């Protein structure tokens, strides 16, 4: 049971990286970005390219992958979503267009890297047992959790302590009020994409490290990260973090009871429950 909780925390931390970016973009630009999962996948595959094809060390590949995906996120917004926003497209149109983008990205990955599963390295990570708690872990899992948690904490500090971070939260709360407070919302939008896409890449890489890389990995992540985002309340990065951990834990804790292939069903059930019982999410719902 404790073992499952540990798996759940690791899974949750990876989901958190995806959910934070998703919720920030959702909150500020008011649309559901169904291409976010594939952005995570793209980040993972870019790092694969740097690591395997260019033989760069993993840490460098990781950073380069995050940077490239961050920039790609901004470019995609410029080219794909902004023209629609400028034509006053409704949220539903933006969401559907993001679905199209998701398919393009996913199949681009399939085309460039092939449909087979890939790995960052073939090294075997020997498990060890944590004393007292009697939990089995390997060093890579600890590393993954540490990196994910570290990034989540960094983002948290950025959003809480820095002026730009607060401006992002403010713009997510109330776009027009941010405008009339003198905040340059264009810059905030760019920053949000940089942050969201960068974090997405990190999440994708960590997932690739934890399991494997395959073109469908981004698509498979969509349901859990959306569940996490909506559970936590759209636009609330803290909600996304908490939601992600809840989803991660729920999925792992369900494995003794239902076949592991159906883990994602847990996310779906939680998502539906949230929408029925408290649609605004745990951390949202202020004034009328």
């Amino acid at each position, binding site marked *: 049971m404790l073992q499952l909780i540990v798996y759940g925390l690791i899974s949750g931390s990876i989901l958190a990286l995806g959910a934070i970016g998703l919720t920030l973009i959702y909150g500020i630009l008011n649309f559901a970005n169904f291409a976010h999962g594939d952005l995570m996948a793209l980040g993972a595959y870019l790092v694969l390219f740097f690591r395997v094809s260019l033989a760069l060390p993993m840490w460098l590949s990781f950073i380069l992958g995050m940077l490239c995906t961050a920039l790609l996120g901004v470019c995609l917004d410029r080219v794909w979503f902004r023209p629609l926003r400028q034509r006053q497209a409704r949220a539903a149109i933006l969401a559907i267009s993001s679905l199209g983008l998701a398919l393009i990205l996913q199949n681009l990955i399939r085309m460039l890297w092939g449909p087979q599963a890939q790995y960052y390295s073939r090294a075997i990570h020997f498990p060890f047992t944590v004393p007292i708690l009697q939990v089995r872990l390997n060093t890579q899992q600890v590393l993954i959790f540490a990196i994910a948690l570290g990034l989540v904490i960094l983002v948290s500090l950025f959003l809480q302590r820095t*002026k730009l971070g*607060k*401006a992002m*939260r*403010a713009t*997510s*709360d*109330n776009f*027009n*009020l*941010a*405008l*009339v*407070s*003198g*905040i*340059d*919302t264009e810059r905030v939008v760019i920053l949000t994409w940089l942050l969201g896409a960068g974090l997405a890449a990190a999440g994708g890489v960590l997932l690739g490290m934890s399991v494997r890389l395959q073109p469908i990995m981004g698509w498979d992540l969509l349901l859990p990260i959306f569940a996490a985002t909506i559970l936590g309340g759209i*636009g*609330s990065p803290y909600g996304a973090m908490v939601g992600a951990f809840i989803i991660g834990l729920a999925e792992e804790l369900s494995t003794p009871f239902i076949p592991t292939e159906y883990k994602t069903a847990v996310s779906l059930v939680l998502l539906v429950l949230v929408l029925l019982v408290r649609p605004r999410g745990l*951390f*949202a719902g*202020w*004034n009328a």
Partner: protein
Amino acid sequence: MALLEVQCITAGYGELPILRSVNLRVERQEIVAIVGPNGAGKSTLMKTVAGLLKPQDGTILLDGQDITHMRPHRIVQAGICYVPQTENVFPSLTVEENLDMGAFIRRGDVRAKKAEMYALFPDLREKRKLRAGYLSGGQRQMVAMARALMLDPRLLLLDEPTAGLSPMLVGVMLEKIVEIHSTGVAMLIVEQNARQALQRAHRGYVLAMGQNRYEDTGQALLAHPEIRAMFLGGR
């Protein structure tokens, strides 16, 4: 030269204009009230001056400078701060963070200005670490106004500052507005409480159906028989 000049502004949402050739002027350090029935376009006028709405025709001048097509954050830089009627705070940010956001582009000392705001609105000091979304309506209005004052605007736009407040708070809020005005800020106020607003305003405009109907000093409008009948409850 007036501080704010609105000349023949035609604006609206989509095809149909809500405002048609509206004119308005605010002199330095004046309080100007805009009154009129619902749907007259008063809020639309505010949003247009603040830059949230692009006018289809007409000109808006701030101290002679053409701000008609300026983006909202530039208009803020030029010295106009706007307090919307609803959704006028950042609910997930604390009171203090709301003020910080108001001061986002402030050059001077933010802390001193915040202290000024806490002195002006004492209730806010003890609640400054609370999320703005958890405050009562009256307290939220105070946060909204304090946020707008953080930049020492030359002109403050207030859209129905007393809306939804209890009768006692309405009086408190209007007194606060007069107090703020005494620091030298010009104010353009849209108000449903027409009588109370006109009592404290230097001049007033009556808008109806998106057009100017009357313009005069506050006192003169209060005394005008037709206006009294329409908005001030007769007598």
